[in-house]
């Protein structure tokens, strides 16, 4: 009886100690979550408070002048640039990922080499891509300051990102889907395009969304390639992007208020793109899992 008492006493001390520990842990993770949300909230609030009062209709004039500081050309260029870069990068990125996960032998030397290369490429700072783009597209290929050389540079920059996310999405597709398809007499091509790829679509799309985020927020890679002319640009013209436009306004020091207004628009644009992509992903998943 005595030993039993001692045992229960020790047990309850043990539990108490752990109870305190788990309370502490609980508090710590809640605090971490709160700090994250607060920082983000503060950032957004700051931009909105400083930016919204400065939003004037003249900021959305079709023609940019140094007086009106219009950002409309930059907005349009941003959309064009995003579209062209994705058009260039997505087919290659997704195609390469399909080859690596579905066709190449898993764990072969080639796969490992490509894997390592993409990992290294995604760690390179964007200014390096910018310099490369300038030397390669602007100078060597004589495209000059143009949306095209900007888009080519961005495409190279986001290629590893798209490839990696697609690869992850494809490897996350359970093998039992592939087996099910082969078991019904479907070939490799049909299996990949009708079963594997659709199942991986949400993952691939989230990669594309990340890529869009990088494109829209990119400045360094574009400074030397597409340039900073604030005009609605065609494929071969130089044209500025929203983030670059904002950088210029802020760095000149004269148009800080306009820069805040621009950043509000940039924020809204990114949010819109994300919402839109989430919507498309949902739409594509209709009638599926």
């Amino acid at each position: 009886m005595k030993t039993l008492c001692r045992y229960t006493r020790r047990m309850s001390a043990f539990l108490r100690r752990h109870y305190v520990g788990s309370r502490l842990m609980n508090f710590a993770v809640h605090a971490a979550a709160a700090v994250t949300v607060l920082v983000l909230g503060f950032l957004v609030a700051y931009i909105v408070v400083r930016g919204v009062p400065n939003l004037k209709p003249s900021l959305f004039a079709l023609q940019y002048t140094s007086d009106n500081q219009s950002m409309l050309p930059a907005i349009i260029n941003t959309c064009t640039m995003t579209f062209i870069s994705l058009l260039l990068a997505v087919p290659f990125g997704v195609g390469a990922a399909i080859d690596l996960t579905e066709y190449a032998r898993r764990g072969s030397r080639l796969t490992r080499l490509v894997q390592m290369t993409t990992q290294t490429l995604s760690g390179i700072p964007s200014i390096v891509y910018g310099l490369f783009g300038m030397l390669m597209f602007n100078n060597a290929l004589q495209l000059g300051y143009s949306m095209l050389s900007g888009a080519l540079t961005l495409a190279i920059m986001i290629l590893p990102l798209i490839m990696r996310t697609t690869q992850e999405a494809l490897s996350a597709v359970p093998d039992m889907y592939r087996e099910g398809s082969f078991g019904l007499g479907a070939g490799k091509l049909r299996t990949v395009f009708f079963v594997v790829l659709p199942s991986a679509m949400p993952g691939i799309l989230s990669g594309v969304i990340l890529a869009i985020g990088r494109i829209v927020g990119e400045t360094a890679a574009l400074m030397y390639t597409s340039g900073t002319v604030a005009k609605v640009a065609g494929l071969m013209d130089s044209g500025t992007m929203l983030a670059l436009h904002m950088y210029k306004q802020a760095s000149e020091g004269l148009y800080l208020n306009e820069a805040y207004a621009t950043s509000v628009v940039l924020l809204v644009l990114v949010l819109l793109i994300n919402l839109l992509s989430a919507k498309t992903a949902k739409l594509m998943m209709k009638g599926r899992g």
Partner: protein
Amino acid sequence: MNSSNAFEVRGMNLHYGSFHALKNIHLDIPKNQITALIGPSGCGKSTFLRSLNRMNDLVEGCRIDGDIRMDGEDIYGKIDVNHLRKRVGMVFQKPNPFPMSIYDNVAYGPRTHGVKNKPQLDALVEKSLKDAAIWDEVKDRLKKSALGLSGGQQQRLCIARALAAQPEVILMDEPTSALDPISTSHIEELALTLKDQYTIIIVTHNMQQAARISDRTVFFLLGEVIESGETEQIFSSPRDKRTEDYITGRFG
């Protein structure tokens, strides 16, 4: 080749790398009967099943020699593998409906083999779902995702999907091991009704299941066929001591 046999296997050996997984298998599998493959885990019964529709081709380092004939034709000879897999359908251990609608799941096989005509496809889907005894449960939700079905329903859907490809043989790899008893009895009844039209080969860990539904039983042990014959005979008077020990639950 005896025309009442769906498969005739002669001197078949299978290696995974250096591991000798199936040893000198001789076996006849008769048409329109249910053949049960039993044996402890790792004895090679699933591996054997998967060699009949060449699913082992997908496994790296797998090597097969010997002779497996389906209707007299060497299935490891110059044949179209996709066509073989159309003729020899498969139902897997875990229900694996594709993440698409119920209709698209069942239509996947026929579409793969070139059926495009919509009324024909509709009829085939309906017939397959009826044959798999799941039509009444899903007829109002054909456009809904197949992943919303219960486990037992999913497995019957997978059977319907296999039937829709119009196979001659259906391989079932422990089709009820992930299911509850009621769903299991559904699948067993289904197998019994299907054997009039199809040859069924089923791998099972469940001795009662083999005894309940199969006409013939094959006992595998360590990659060898120890005994094969009428299910009645195997379960009532096994010739080999090891078979007796296994079916009476002395090991396995």
